[in-house]
């Protein structure tokens, strides 16, 4: 019993130390966002600003049409989230659980395509969207999400589905359930944790992506937040205080969403009865 307490205090200690280390960049960001450019680079570095420069935030909101860019980001984000989560779960299940001719070939191809650097597929992809006259619309940024959301997520979901004991489906099959029912009623609730991961990664991906919107959109009124905030960056000298404030603005929603979302990592799927 005593050993357990010691173990526990050690792990608590490690936890706190780790948390502090992880906190550094965030604290750094917030404090820099409230400084003047001069202060950010002062040597030796300062911990806190002499005077909190809340005006940095006011300034970025005056330079950037925040609401418009936020709206554009949501227009892309919401369907992408739905599409990715829905289709990557389906595909993950299909590849993990169902046997059909060509399965391994298709799965292998999907994985393999991730290994070709994007720099050389960018132009053919762009040409395709251009043929579809979808340049300067949100479609190229949304539609691909409804096709599995990419090899990464499909592979991820497949791994989790594969780790669920097969006895579950088999007994359901004997009870007369269809594969569709097995998927929606039995297995889907068991992969909540990885679904959450997919959702969060998708959110982060869309939220921070400036390259896709930059390539496909030709109209500043359609810019997204990540792209809009780049407008603060000068070509010769950077207004670091503004860039830091902008970075903080981008960070906060992500933190809140993560904080809320992580609760749904429900522990123990209590399958042990079957597994053991």
């Amino acid at each position, binding site marked *: 019993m005593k050993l357990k307490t010691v173990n526990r205090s050690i*792990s*608590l200690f*490690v*936890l706190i130390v*780790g*948390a502090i280390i*992880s906190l550094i*960049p*965030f604290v750094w*960001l917030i404090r*820099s966002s409230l400084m003047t450019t001069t202060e950010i680079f002062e040597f030796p*570095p300062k911990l806190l600003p002499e005077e909190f420069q809340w005006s940095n935030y006011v300034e970025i909101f005056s330079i950037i049409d925040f609401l418009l860019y936020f709206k554009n980001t949501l227009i892309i984000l919401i369907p992408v989230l739905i599409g990715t989560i829905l*289709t990557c779960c389906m595909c993950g299940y*299909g590849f*993990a*659980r*169902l*046997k*059909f001719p*060509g399965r391994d070939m*298709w799965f292998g*191809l999907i*994985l*393999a*395509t991730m*290994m*070709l*650097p994007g*720099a050389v*597929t960018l*132009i053919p*992809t762009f040409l395709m969207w251009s043929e579809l006259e979808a340049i300067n619309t949100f479609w190229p940024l949304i539609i691909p999400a*409804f*096709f*599995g959301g990419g090899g*990464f997520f499909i*592979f991820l979901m497949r791994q*989790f*589905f*594969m*780790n669920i*004991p097969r006895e579950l489906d088999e007994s359901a*099959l004997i009870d007369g359930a*269809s*594969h569709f029912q097995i998927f929606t009623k039995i297995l889907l609730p068991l992969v909540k944790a990885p679904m959450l*991961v997919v959702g*969060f990664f998708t959110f982060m991906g869309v939220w921070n992506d400036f390259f896709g919107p930059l390539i496909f959109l030709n109209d500043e009124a359609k810019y997204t937040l990540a792209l809009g905030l780049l407008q603060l960056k000068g070509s010769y000298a950077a207004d*670091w205080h503004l860039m*830091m404030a902008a*970075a*903080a603005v981008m960070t906060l929603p992500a*933190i809140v969403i993560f*904080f809320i979302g*992580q609760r749904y*990592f429900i*522990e123990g*799927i209590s*399958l042990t009865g079957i*597994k*053991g």
Partner: protein
Amino acid sequence: MNIENIPLGNNRTRGTVKVKGINNIRRKEIFWGYFFTLPAILGLLIWTIGPMIASLYFSFTDYKVVGDFQWIGFQNYTEIFKNDLNFKKSLIVTFYFAIGSTIFTLAAALFVAILMNISVKGQSLFRTMFYLPVIVPAVASNILWLWLFNPDFGLLNSILDFVNLPKLMWIYDESTVIPSLILLSMWSCGGTALIFLAGLQDVPKQLLEAVEIDGGNWWHKFRFVTVPSISPVIFFNLIMGLIGSFQAFTQAYVMTEGGPNNSTLFYVFLIYREAFQKNNMGYASALSWILFLVILIFTLFIFKSSKSWVHYGGGK
């Protein structure tokens, strides 16, 4: 296989009941298999295969995006192997980084995931804190890291000095720059950790308790219960880590600009430079296909080996 031609209705007029039943079950499974994976297969055919074939085709041409181009056979490839001044060095540097960063990031991520999974008061808060390094945009954390890496008064050297170790030049020396960048990628292992955390939710508690009852310590629990039951996730993170780090360059490039003396000239940067700075899209495509094959061989090798160490709860 054409799915539409498979009769789905119950056809009870021919064959024995048993065979019919199995056939039916098989057919249904094939139908549902294609049904569920259709988005991915269509996506692959529509969005991915086309551009891939196009880039393969470009790799045999002198395509420059602007202006005409023609078929030049293997000329790009021979040029790469014979005359490219940076090809070999870049490949070595990339391998070094990819393997190092995959292994160390994986270990760090697993460690962080275990920390995130300790049930204490304020667990949500701790989890969020551990994930912060990934959320904070690179523009902010890069400046911070430049301070930390400073040889004369950076925090890292102060620590080395404190424990009586020799100071390092970190990202400013050819020999230490890649390890420094690996350290940087360990720092932002939160994404990988998150996937591990999801995996840790599936570790059967009863088994952990059983080990405890048998007198096993934390290492026994970790080695004989946790690792086997999350091995599919380890496998996933390993593969994705490799694919990702073979192609990584942005964050590192911002810190070092490929230097000092090309010691962080990652392969993808080579591709990027050819494709967009010099418009040599054909040459860049050839470079890409070489990298593609390298990663492919690597991945196949790991897939083969995985049979011996990845244990799926659902069997094969």
